[in-house]
């Protein structure tokens, strides 16, 4: 530790000297690492948005329970109370015939005019039940068995398909993250090996003078960290530009998609990319260093 503190300035100068000794090559490796981390950033952004979407949709998971048209409203309200007691239900309420029609008008948007063709309101009152998605099967079964319930409608198919898509995206994402990690490690350890080869005379002399491996290797670890951090910074800039333009282009056009907050997303992705670049930089440098032979 004492040796390290006494040589902070030396390590700093050595790091820049190693970078400058192979500047063009190092520049390309920063670009390469940056683009790879950008790819990783895109996958991570997609995963974060997908998770947000799924979480929101899971919160919105609801089933509709229809009862006999002859049932009195007070009896229907008792039924609502009974449903609220079922485990896995976090809210239930009675939706009257008029509200039911109004919901459909909202859903149809400009096409809602078609409803004018009906002389009478064709929509029946029902009980809107908000549920935890995990408990869908049991809730459906219990609601279906309640006295007075004639028919239960769920949107399970939609939710299951969405879950499937997001699950698939997660697998692809994991594969891309693995590929990114391995590629960055290969690029970086190769760069470190190249740096070691270029400085082999100096390294050999230091060894003969008794320099410990940590003293010889530290500037190379710093180079690895510097290169990946610069690559990470480049990736962060690119991904933030992409997120910004993505949010700007869908702003107002796709309001029904529950996107996470732009600032939060940019912050999280930036932190993630920098953290990943730090870890990869450290690992890549150590892999590269481990390749120094036992040269006497």
């Amino acid at each position, binding site marked *: 530790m004492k040796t390290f503190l006494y040589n902070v300035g030396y390590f700093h100068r050595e790091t820049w*000297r190693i970078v400058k000794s192979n500047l063009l090559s190092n520049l390309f490796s920063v670009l390469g690492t940056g683009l790879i981390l950008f790819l990783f950033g895109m996958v991570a952004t997609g995963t974060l948005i997908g998770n947000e979407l799924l979480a929101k949709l899971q919160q919105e998971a609801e089933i509709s329970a229809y009862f006999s048209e002859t049932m009195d409203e007070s009896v229907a309200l008792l039924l609502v109370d009974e449903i609220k007691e079922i485990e896995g239900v976090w809210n239930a309420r009675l939706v009257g015939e008029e509200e039911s029609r109004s919901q459909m008008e909202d859903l149809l948007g400009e096409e809602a005019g078609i409803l004018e063709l009906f002389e009478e309101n064709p929509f029946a009152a029902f009980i809107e039940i908000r549920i935890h998605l995990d408990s869908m099967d049991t809730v459906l079964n219990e609601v279906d068995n309640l006295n007075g319930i004639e028919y239960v409608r769920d949107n399970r198919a939609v939710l299951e398909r969405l879950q499937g898509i997001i699950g698939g995206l997660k697998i692809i994402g994991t594969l891309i993250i693995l590929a990114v990690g391995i590629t960055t490690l290969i690029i970086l350890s190769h760069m470190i090996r190249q740096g070691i080869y270029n400085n082999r005379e100096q390294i*050999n*002399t230091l060894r*003969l*003078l*008794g*320099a*410990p491996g940590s003293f010889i290797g530290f500037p190379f670890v710093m180079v690895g960290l510097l290169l990946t951090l610069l690559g990470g910074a480049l990736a962060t800039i690119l991904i933030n530009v992409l997120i910004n333009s993505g949010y700007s282009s869908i702003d107002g056009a796709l309001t029904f998609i529950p996107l996470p907050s732009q600032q939060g997303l940019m912050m999280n992705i930036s932190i993630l990319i920098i953290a990943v670049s730090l870890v990869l930089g450290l690992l890549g440098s150590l892999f590269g260093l481990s390749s120094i032979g*036992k040269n006497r």
Partner: protein
Amino acid sequence: MIRANGVYLRYPDGTEALKDINLHIKPGEIVYITGPSGSGKTSLLKLLLGMEFATLGSLEVMGMPMVKGKTASINKLRRKIGPVFQEFKLIDGRRAFENVMMGMRFLGMPPRKMKDEAKNALIKVGLEEKMASKVENLSWGQQQRVAIARAIARKPALILADEPTGNLDQENAMNILKILHNVKDINTTVLITTHATHLLDGIEDANFLHVDNGSIRVEGKGW
């Protein structure tokens, strides 16, 4: 300080560099190893620095057996040694001062002390004016003196100097030998190889070994 019993060194190509070397060098001794080129002088220093290992026999430096596989221990031992290589092994692109500093950076010395030691060592070898020069711009003789400054600045327990006067004129060569003799004051053991026996005529406070064809032929000024 150094103890060798029946040491042989055979290189992988079959060359027998050293044969039946027996040595006992005490702390603070100055020993000249003379002999013609290719006689085994450099090979002996390589054994002492752990760059090669005896194929037969036993060798101890500062109480440590010099055997293969003890990389960490040999590394620690090397920190107590001030080597002067025949080919200097200076680091190009650095100034003379930085090269001397480089030999001390991992010894746990405070920066101020390192700078003072480096400066003093360069003054001792007569390179006060060349401290800021890059080593590749120095003459061979000057580079050799930087290498010597790097070795003595470390205040080592043992100096292994391989032909330290090889590229110097008579006057500078004598000065360098004088400097190497002066480290005796701090009880440093000094081993100097040289084929320039004419420089040693007036030297009395040292021991002499003459190596020929890998073996110690004569002890004393027997050339």
